């Protein structure tokens, strides 16, 4: 009596490696190389950690950084960007509020650019931050998180050189 009840090997082979193993191998290699290249040079996968971008970006969410966003145009006000430290392993996720050459100040939690209050519809939380007006250099951007309800001393913010901005958040 035959007691074998395993799946048909040819059926299993078709599912796992396809009808033509050589072609499947080539496809797998091409796909792996493409994924690696995209993840490294085009869309950098990130995990948001910490609460400085609340409520726009919640803690522990996965997102992507578009590294080609500023290939042909400079960063814009309102863009949420990734700012590298020594390299791309860990980055700050911040919003650009001040552009090169502008004066940036905080008064009662509002950002003032060249003396004019900036309209920031993305802000939901109240803030009491105060900072006197200060001028940005020719390649400097003022970057700050959206969660300005936290004490200013605990919030990492300030000017970032253009070379440190790696790209714009995708989602």
């Amino acid at each position, binding site marked *: 009596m035959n007691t074998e009840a395993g799946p048909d090997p040819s059926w299993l082979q078709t599912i796992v490696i396809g009808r033509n193993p050589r072609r499947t191998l080539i496809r797998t290699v091409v796909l792996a190389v493409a994924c690696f290249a995209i993840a490294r040079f085009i869309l950098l996968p990130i995990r948001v950690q910490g609460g400085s971008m609340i409520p726009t970006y919640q803690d522990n969410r996965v997102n992507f950084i578009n590294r080609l966003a500023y290939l042909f145009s400079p960063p814009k006000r309102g863009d949420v960007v990734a700012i590298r430290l020594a*390299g791309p392993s860990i980055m700050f996720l911040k919003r650009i509020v001040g552009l090169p050459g502008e004066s940036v100040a905080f008064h009662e939690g509002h950002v003032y650019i060249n003396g004019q209050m900036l309209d920031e519809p993305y802000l939901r939380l109240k803030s009491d931050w105060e900072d006197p*007006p200060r001028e940005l250099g020719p390649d400097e951007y003022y970057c700050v998180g959206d969660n300005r309800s936290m004490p200013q001393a605990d919030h990492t913010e300030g000017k970032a050189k253009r070379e440190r901005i790696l790209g714009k958040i995708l989602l």
Partner: protein
Amino acid sequence: MKGRVSQIILLGILVLLGIWLWRTLFPNPARVIRKRMLELAQAASFSGKEGLIAKAFNAEQFGSFFDNDVEAIVDVPGRSQQTFSGRAELVQAALGVRTVVGSVAIEFLDINVTVSPDKQSAEVNLTGKARVAGERDFFVQELKFTLKKIGREWLIKKVETVKTLSQNWRPTPGLAAA
């Protein structure tokens, strides 16, 4: 034909062996420094299980990475800037941290090494990541190390924290607070 293939394989193996031997006998300074920084991260990390003698020994071990006249200027999150002058002061501080904090796991990421043309000094820029026992989030800090080759060893002469998002400003003339 078969003999020629074997010869080529043998030649390849010999070339690889030669490269390995050359790298072992004359290591690239950047590679040596990178390895040293990883060892430093390991020496700076500690668990809460250390006894008093182990604490003192490990703090001393941590100090062996630094020159006698080392200068460390660090911005500790939530505190004012701290300056340590000399290895003894640094070891003392390391011992103090080991006594107060339960455990710390330090990692050095994105280690960029620039060796001077005379290969006697180097600068290292890296991202330090620290997980402290009892804290939900980890701490990150960009650091700059200046190293000097003393004898056969690379010792740290200076450590500075780097402000990734700088707060050094030029005041705007003629503009008052809005």
